[in-house]
């Protein structure tokens, strides 16, 4: 018998508010329809009503997890228009912040995935590590969520004491390699819940424009940090982990391996952090009035590529601010991953796409 199950927008099976209608034949999902927009805040419109400096603060509120990458992308786009080139030290600090943000986001996702799998010990382990990353972010920026670090032409704060970050790197790498990766790869409970579940084929990932760890777990070797490097990413050696299975298990592995790579990048950046200023010399007029034109900036958020398009009409307020977030591309793939799957697996499959609806709805 075919029946339709409406889930959401507010439901214990969903990590965030969206609505999913699952069409089932018995316990098997045969189709899925998704509705979004429940977190709509009109951020693009609001950014077109504020000056560029206010815009930085605003776009940092697009997301409560990857806040830094939004202000970074916004500033990078403005820097292309007004020609403000951040000093080398500022570019390194942007990388360090970006990778710390990736770490705490991936620890969060791994913990939630572990909870949904039914492995709460790993949930606790992940969140313990996440707290340490957030403590480091707090020590650098003074904040745990919205760091206020990016400025047009650089960053607002220096990293005075690199040991704040260095001290947690060894512990994180040890925890990831000794605990998290072995359990994600070998534990029977994890394997039975994740292996072969929620498969997104490479063809579907490419056709739907999937990005980030979701795409990389389906064999799409795409990462803006490598293909179109920004900040100081082209100065560091790191790998882009890619798995080909496309299932929930592959997503777990990609996230875990990416955390190792983030530690590697941060260690290189701290070791080679150049001396010098953290702000380009930008006149007050340059900060507020941006030459007319359109600029596009991209960055690799924890969930994948973020794109900002800013059109200036030469005044202090942007004419158009466009924000395209990774989840906006990734969540359309949920339909492909749940069809043919057990209804009971659908919460884990959806969560394995690492959705962020604050980002998606803007």
């Amino acid at each position, binding site marked *: 018998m075919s029946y339709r199950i409406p889930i959401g927008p507010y439901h214990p099976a969903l990590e965030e508010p969206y609505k999913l209608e699952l069409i089932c034949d018995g316990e098997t999902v045969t189709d899925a329809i998704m509705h*979004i927009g429940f977190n709509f805040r009109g951020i693009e419109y609001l950014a*077109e009503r504020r000056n560029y400096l206010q815009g930085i603060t605003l776009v940092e509120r697009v997301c409560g997890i990857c806040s830094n990458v939004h202000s970074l992308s916004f500033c*990078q786009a403005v820097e292309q228009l007004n020609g403000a080139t951040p000093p080398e030290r500022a570019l390194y600090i942007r990388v360090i912040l970006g990778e710390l943000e990736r770490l705490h986001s991936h620890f969060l996702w791994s913990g939630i995935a572990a909870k949904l799998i039914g492995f709460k010990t790993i949930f606790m382990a992940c969140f313990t590590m996440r707290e340490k990353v957030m403590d480091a972010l707090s020590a650098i920026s003074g904040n745990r969520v919205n760091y206020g670090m990016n400025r047009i032409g650089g960053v607002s704060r220096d990293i005075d004491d690199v040991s704040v970050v260095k001290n947690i790197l060894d512990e994180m790498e040890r925890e990831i390699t000794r605990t998290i990766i072995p359990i994600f790869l070998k534990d029977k409970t994890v394997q039975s819940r994740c292996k072969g579940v929620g498969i997104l084929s490479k063809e579907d990932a490419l*056709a739907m424009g999937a990005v980030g760890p979701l795409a990389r777990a389906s064999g799409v070797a795409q990462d803006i940090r490598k293909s179109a490097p920004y900040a100081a990413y082209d100065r560091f050696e790191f790998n882009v982990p890619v798995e080909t299975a496309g299932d929930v298990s592959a997503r777990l592995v990609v996230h875990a391996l990416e955390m190792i790579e983030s530690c590697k990048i941060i260690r290189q950046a701290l070791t080679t952090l150049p001396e010098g200023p953290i702000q380009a010399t930008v006149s007050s007029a340059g900060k507020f009035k941006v030459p007319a*034109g359109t600029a596009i900036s991209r960055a690799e958020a924890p969930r994948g*590529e973020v794109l900002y*398009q800013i*059109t200036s009409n030469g005044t202090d307020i942007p*004419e*158009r601010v466009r924000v395209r977030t990774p989840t906006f591309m990734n969540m359309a793939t949920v339909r492909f991953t749940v069809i043919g799957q057990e209804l009971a697996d659908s919460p884990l499959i959806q969560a394995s796409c690492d959705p962020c609806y604050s980002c998606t709805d803007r």
Partner: protein
Amino acid sequence: MSTETNGFENTLLQLGLGEGWKWSNGSWWLTPADALDVRATASKMFQLGARFLCITATECADKEIRLDYQWDYEGQLLSFVVVTASGKIATIADISPAADWVERETHEYFAVEFIGRKTTLPLMTRAGDPIGINLHKEEAK
């Protein structure tokens, strides 16, 4: 322009993406002499393996909508611009399924009719909601 992008317009020409590519502020922009065929250009992009990224809609002074299409080809950002005619433009969602959601969003906020779509189900709005309800228009009321 960075040294990495110098000469890439020749590559784009060799790939069959036509003449008139210019680098500006983070992207290659196609500005052909004649009006652009959005479906033909999207088809070429898709066949080359370019990755669809986004459509940015902006309302023009004459009430038509300017649509900026963005693609990624081997890390290079490729953009082209089309303007709707009486609020209509051909869909590319059948060529690149990745464009489905952004076309639906653009339809809801800017009332752009994407010709050729089989269905345009509500995405950000709900069934029965009016279309073209972007906040700029609400503010102007």
